[in-house]
């Protein structure tokens, strides 16, 4: 029936293996190296895969709102990714433990009580509030992901087209809720790593990063399975062109918002703000910053301008590998300068990335296997498949 499912099962087995090995290594490292160091690496790995899960939710909401044809083959992946959010919440536990909080967030330290600015922020940056908000974010996200998943599944089973409108009416306000909750969540989990710093653009940059990286993963996977049923015969250049153009748009938009933030804070040169960029341009961090500009923007920008890349699946896949790696570097660049003067990654950073990634992908694939890989009663999809 669906040959691609066999591939997905294989991939899941590998993912489980990678997850066990990675997390095992990380646990070993927490004893051998240091607990503090291990939790910092773990936080990095978790945030990166959280980006994929939230990106899945964002793209699900976007697809159901605008109903673009480009999303039809990918929507089951987006939904499956969004449904990993409960898992991500569970994986957050080590960070929420007092030791984890202490290793990551300066504002939980005793010294914060004598810091005037941090005292002023204490009404937001306090452990109780942090926990309460954590629960609220995940409840909201899971609720939206679950309802959209459920209505898609029911439509697959019953073929009742009324579910499509139901999803639109639910997803559109969901985008509003998602943007606000994701902004505040990123403020809690990332921005507050450097607690004096703030930027109103941050939530936008992070939300774009999330949909950007998830879009990359979904397109990369589907192009890999393009010769297997049910994708076989479906993936035509009109799709790859749309996907390439979307990735191009995300590349440009991400750069636009990131560059704007940098330009404004650079021009303002205020102590609380500029520290963020000073930290990221000191010593060898400068190399990473430059790499993000060159390989994270200019390279995919120029490559994706070409219509040829958007027509040939293998070229598009290679481009996505670059995008994906640079997304991981970007998250690294957001987090690590807080803890380390040197950008050289520790082996535990890789262990965390692979370990959390393995578990995340295993659950993602499991979600994907639960249902048919394509929406079952979608006239626009059948039209294309049958070559009308």
């Amino acid at each position, binding site marked *: 029936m669906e040959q691609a499912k066999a591939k997905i099962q294989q991939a899941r087995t590998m993912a489980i293996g990678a997850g066990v090995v990675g997390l095992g290594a990380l646990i070993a490292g927490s004893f051998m190296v240091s607990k503090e160091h291990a939790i910092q690496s773990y936080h990095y790995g978790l945030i990166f895969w959280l980006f994929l899960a939230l990106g899945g939710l964002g793209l699900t909401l976007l697809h159901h709102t605008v109903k673009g044809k480009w999303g039809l083959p990918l929507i089951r992946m987006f939904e499956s990714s969004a449904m990993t959010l409960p898992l991500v919440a569970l994986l957050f536990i080590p960070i929420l433990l007092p030791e984890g909080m202490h290793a990551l967030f300066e504002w939980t330290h005793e010294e914060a009580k004598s810091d005037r600015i941090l005292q002023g922020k204490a009404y937001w940056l306090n452990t109780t509030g942090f926990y309460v908000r954590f629960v609220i974010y995940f409840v909201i996200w899971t609720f939206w992901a679950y309802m959209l998943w459920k209505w898609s599944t029911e439509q697959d089973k019953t073929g009742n087209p009324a579910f499509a409108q139901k999803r639109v009416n639910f997803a559109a306000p969901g985008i509003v809720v998602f943007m606000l909750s994701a902004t505040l969540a990123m403020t809690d989990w990332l921005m507050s790593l450097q607690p004096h710093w703030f930027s109103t653009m941050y939530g936008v940059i992070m939300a774009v990063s999330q949909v950007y990286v998830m879009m990359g993963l979904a397109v990369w996977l589907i192009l890999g399975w393009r010769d297997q049923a049910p994708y076989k015969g479906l993936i035509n250049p009109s799709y790859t062109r749309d996907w390439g153009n979307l990735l191009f748009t995300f590349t440009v938009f991400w750069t*636009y918002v990131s560059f*704007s933030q940098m330009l404004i804070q650079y021009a*303002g040169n205020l102590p609380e703000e500029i520290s963020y960029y000073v930290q990221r341009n000191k010593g060898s961090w400068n190399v990473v910053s430059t790499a993000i500009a060159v390989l994270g923007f200019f390279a995919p920008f120029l490559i994706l301008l070409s219509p040829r890349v958007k027509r040939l699946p293998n070229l598009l896949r290679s481009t996505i590998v670059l995008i994906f790696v640079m997304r991981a570097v970007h998250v690294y660049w957001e987090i690590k300068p807080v803890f380390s003067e040197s950008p050289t990654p520790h082996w535990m950073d890789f262990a965390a990335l692979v370990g959390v990634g393995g578990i995340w992908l295993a659950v993602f694939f499991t979600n994907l296997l639960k249902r048919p890989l394509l929406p079952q009663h979608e006239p626009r999809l059948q039209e294309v498949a049958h070559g*009308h």
Partner: protein
Amino acid sequence: MQETIKPPMGTDAPLIEGKQNYETITEKIGGIVLKSPPKIWYPLFALGFAGTMVMVFTICWLLLRGIGIWGVNQPVGWGFDIINFVWWIGIGHAGTLISAILLLLRQQWRTSINRFSEAMTIFAVMCAGMFPLLHTGRPWLDYWLFPLPNWLAMWPQFRSPLLWDVFAVSTYFTVSLLFWYTGLIPDFASLRDRAKGKIAQLICGTLSLGWRGSAKHWMRYESAYLLLAGLSTPLVLSVHSVVSLDFATSIVPGWHVTVFPPYFVAGAIYAGFAMVITLAVPFRMIYPQLKDYITNHHMDMMAKVMLATGLIVFYGYMMEAFYSFYSANQFETYMIENRFWGPYSGTYWALMICNGLIPQLLWFPRFRHNLFWLYGVSMVVNVGMWLERFVIISVSLHREYKPSGWGFYAGTQWDWSMFIGTIFFFVMMMFLFARFMPMIAIFEMRDLWHRLYHGKSGHNGHAPAHVPNSAEVTSKEDA
């Protein structure tokens, strides 16, 4: 104003209504230009002209007396002049978005409103440009804004966003004008061929640049138009981003906000679509034949874009407020408290109601499909966007870091007469445009007609029983 809207409504409504064929499309749109205008045109134009004279009078007085006649002073050095500049330039953005970005996105609903909103863009940029040029105080020296080699070896400050504005706005105006004119060429040729009078033939013939409609002409036209669309697309983002940097690169609390660039761009599109609706609804009443081409489908789509961009803008307001408190910086916090409860709190809360609260009605199809409500919301947004600039620009300035530098600001009668004068100037230009140029791209409508109905427009030009909606048509094309 209230129209009874027949089903189907919203995006189910067709993009072209009524019994049409190629001939009726050309006749109905071209006829507006070639025949004498409806009676109501004369008093409306006269009204616009009279208001423009108020503007001209104000400018003359300003040149005689200097900008001391305005309300700006210490500490509020940027008042109505800059507010109106930002307001007008924002309004222009819908035109560029509709004509360029929606073209690249292959959105068919752009076709009947693009010409109209491009004209709006050009006139809005004209209105916008007047303010900073006059604000320099010596407008006869405004060419100094450009980096001209000169014997004083005086150069503009390249690091200042104010100079980037000069480049951004002049590029924007040039590209918009070229884009607009390029699209008009085939239509001028149609008018030339249909015109009865010698003068009309001569004018349209000159403007159509020898267009013959040969395959080669079309090929070149298509690629030129696509290139101009590609050029205009980044301008939608860049112009208002640069405008926002005028404020954001400073360190004034309330101005120094990193989210400004996308938030200003969204606000510009928001204001622009509100203005398109503000103009389209009365123009459909003055020229009833337009109702076939600017249908409820278009109104519904514009309302949705307004809702989406309005939400982005509202997100910006919330971020400004949240991070001002989060920053725990006394000046940042005071800035937002001053907006909430200070002497100008009325404008702030009016802004929240106009731009944040009332447009939420557009979530409901009932309001999107009712032109009376839609028009009302668009008017409210026009006001709201002006208030937004007032709050950001002047309210942020009126209380400096130390209370000794606090002041109050209000526009004088000359500020108001200049602002209202530009509105009338804009209206007058729109009426001139409607009188002398085809308001809707004739050939694009014929092309759309062909795409929608595949030439199967039927024997007597009756629309076929099954009218495909835009989504279906797009998927057919792509397959």
